[in-house]
């Protein structure tokens, strides 16, 4: 298992040029909003002493006065974010088709990225739609009963303690189910690429492989999740101990943030690779 984990990490780094395409697309989209944030802040409180309050640490009054007075300029940006995420959701099917195609077929060039993206886009769109429905179904199945039964739970249990524990235990269950559909989705897509199956057979084959390798795959997913938690922890720790408090630290943190984003993309490639390795371990080195 560790072997697959390490091999996948190495393999993930091999696709750094493809990762760069996704990174660039995301950066450009995020910049369109980030620049607006900069402009709104600059135009509204750019000359205020309140800004220096925000540099060393968060300041509730400065922040809320800004929102109260200039909220109308900020909220459209978050409105745009919603649409952007929606559009990106569709576009990411395209990008994922390209990257997954290259990773599975071991083609490491920009031209094969675009051709794979175009080739699998429609099949993967159907798969995305299918899993989106399952995702909403699972989310509704778990959270609607739990969240809507608070009053009833207070009437039923002696204290709120059992309810809190139900809530806490619902998270692992939810993530377990999400892991299952994630693995199923990846396995299905890999099947379509590797075995040239249609969507229905891809899903069937994906389900079969997911069930067969579920615990193994879950373990690898868990290992990657740990890597992510560790990274996040390091970032938050650095943020807390050093923080973006001066010109230099802001620059260093911007570089760190961008490195994290880029690594997150490769991290996803590594996960794809490891899932593929578990089920099709012998196909390649």
């Amino acid at each position, binding site marked *: 298992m560790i072997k697959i984990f390490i091999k996948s990490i190495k393999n993930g780094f091999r696709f750094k040029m493809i990762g760069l395409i*996704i990174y660039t697309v*995301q*950066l450009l*989209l*995020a*910049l369109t*909003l*980030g620049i607006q*944030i*900069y402009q709104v*802040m*600059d135009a*509204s*409180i*750019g*000359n*205020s*002493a*309140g*800004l*220096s309050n*925000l*540099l060393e*640490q*968060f300041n*509730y*009054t*400065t922040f*809320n*006065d800004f*929102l*109260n*007075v200039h909220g109308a300029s900020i909220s459209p940006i978050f409105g745009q*974010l919603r649409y*952007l*995420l929606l559009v*990106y*959701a569709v576009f*990411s*099917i395209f*990008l994922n088709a390209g990257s997954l195609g290259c990773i599975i077929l071991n083609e490491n060039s920009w031209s094969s990225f675009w051709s794979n993206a175009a080739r699998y886009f429609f099949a*993967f769109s159907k798969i995305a739609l299918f*899993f*989106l429905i399952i995702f909403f179904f699972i989310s509704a199945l778990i959270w609607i009963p739990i969240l809507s039964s608070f009053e009833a739970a*207070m*009437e039923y249990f*002696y*204290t*709120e303690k059992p309810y*809190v524990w139900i809530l806490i235990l619902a998270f692992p269950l939810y993530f377990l189910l999400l892991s299952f559909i994630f693995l199923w989705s990846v396995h299905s897509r890999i099947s379509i690429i590797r075995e040239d199956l249609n969507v229905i057979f891809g899903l069937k084959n994906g389900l079969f492989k997911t069930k067969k390798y579920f615990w193994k795959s879950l373990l690898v997913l868990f290992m990657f999740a740990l890597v992510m938690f560790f990274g996040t922890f390091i970032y*938050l720790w650095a943020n*807390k101990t050093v923080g*973006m408090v001066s*010109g230099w630290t*802001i620059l260093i943190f*911007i570089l760190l*943030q961008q490195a994290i*984003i880029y690594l*997150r*993309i490769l991290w996803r490639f590594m996960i794809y690779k490891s899932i593929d390795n578990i089920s099709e371990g012998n196909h390649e080195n």
Partner: protein
Amino acid sequence: MRLALNILFLTVGILFQIESFAQCDPYFKNPHSIRNANYEINLQLDHEKKKILATEQLIWINTSPDTLNEMRFYMYLNSFKNMESTFMKSANNIFGQDITKRTSDTWGWIDITKLIDSNGSSLEYRYIQPSDDNTEDQSILSVALKEELLPNDTLILNMNFEAKMPKTIARMGYAKDDFFMFVHWFPQACPYVTKADGTWAWNSHQAHRRTEFFADFGNYDVKITTDKKFILGASGCLVSQIENSDNTITSHYHGEDLIDFAWTAYPSYEVMEDQWKHVYIRLLIPGEHCTHGQRLIQAVKNSLEYFEKHVGEYPYTYLTMVDPPMKGLRSGFMEYPTFITGGSFYAWPSNIRSIESLMIHEFSHQYFMGMVASNEKEEAWLDEGFVTFYEDCIMEEYYGKDQSLFNICGYAANNSSFTRNEYTSLDNLSLDIINQPGWKSKGDTKPIVYAKTATMLQTLKRLAGEEAFDKMMKNYFNRWKFKHPKSQDFYAVANEYLTDLLESKYGMDLNSFLDQSLNTTRYCDFKVGQLRHIPIKSKHGWFGNQDKIKYQEGKKTGHFLSKVRIEQLGTFEIPVEIEFYLDNGNVIKEIWNGKGRSKDFVFEGPSKVKSVHIDPEQKIFIDVDLNNNSYFSNPIDLSIKKYSAKAIYWFQNALQTVGFLF
């Protein structure tokens, strides 16, 4: 063995009783108040039927110069009798609870079954509606007296009454597993007091969703008989407990100089006890909340200490705190004399101190409501505003200036800023005035009556300085404790202690400040408007006459004319300090009297004005936008870069997450 165990428990029980009784003494050597409404109540709780059967003796003194032939009682429990009460009509949703869906056993009411005067004559009574024409409302009872009650005469009434508790609603009632909270549970005398014009009258407002209570001071002697399984807590102090033969226990509580009496019963309370100087503190808390019991006790100890130092001594030797179980949460967050209720949740995080803050709020009501017993119904700001102000002061003194309320991964707030934002974040800052009865307000009362008042007091404290402010409050407390002050009484004390100080310090008119804050919807928003630098040139053109005429070329002198416009975007008039920082490091301090919409300040010299700071110490905390109070001509945009970078990072992360799903 069993006998031995019983003896052991009995001994422990007696020891425990002796110890706990020794911890509080309800009797004052001298009365603190006029004590014109005194109650002796004997009651039995039928927990299965959620009912109490009681006898009540009221000894009431007519402190007015009027002769009375009527007595009035609050019967607020009847608010929960049906949907037609004025209380229910003023809201169909109480704390998110849909009250229209109540079943027959979940309503509550109170009924007098026998009423006689000291001669034994039975008296006639009827429900009246002094506040509206709603004849279905039974929250005020009028009793026709057989004999006229002369000034200074004492009225003694004896009655039997029955009260059915509703399922928890608006701070009272029962919940499952025999949880009970009793407030407004007995016929309570309405005060006969002076109106604003000085004439005397009944102050008997019907129960309304937006108002709480106003009552006379007196002594309460209450004997409560319940099943043995219950743990009790009440206003006043436990004097004795007697076990009866029928598996019940009678607990005798006594409290002096109180304006009300509340109590609770629940078999599953844990009792945590503590002592602060002369005050015996008793916390009733369900087992699942015990992990933060000590936090709540410490919060109250901090409050006792703060109040003693800044306002005045807590004279009672007892205080009961209740943290209701979740199923009875609707009975929480309320203040009664020497009896306060908070609210918490299992595993409440330590970095979110709202549970302390709320307990401190309710404790502060012991001062403003319990002792300084202003009329909450008519002038709620005198208690809720003051209490919110002290809640914020105490929290910031003991839990950190910048993060007293919460600190979640560096995103922190202190109480006064949080309170201020409740007011400044209003969509319409001018919807309501502070000083009006609850039933007149058009919007939510919290941001105005609580938050704006507290922010106004915070402004006053910062302007006057803590020492002067404390001196004023100590005198207000001492003069008006155990009495019923009105707004004018506070104005009078404030004027006595702060008028000259504020006038000499800032040229400020205290009365105008109070009036604008409390009785108008004006808001304050200072802004640094334009800042312009005009280079000054030497004279340019022909100068002199005839043969002495000379042409002079205008040259740069290296001097500048800096013009700064200070604006008031609201209509609030208040003098304000302004600091102008020059390039050469000099600071010029000015005071603008705040009259009019704007004022231009002009400076001439070799240095330009680098930055302008209106009210640099943020004394005028009631200003609704503090960000526009300062202006740097060459700002450093590092903070903007920081937050823009953070925003980009989180946008990218959001995109990543979406990408991961598909």
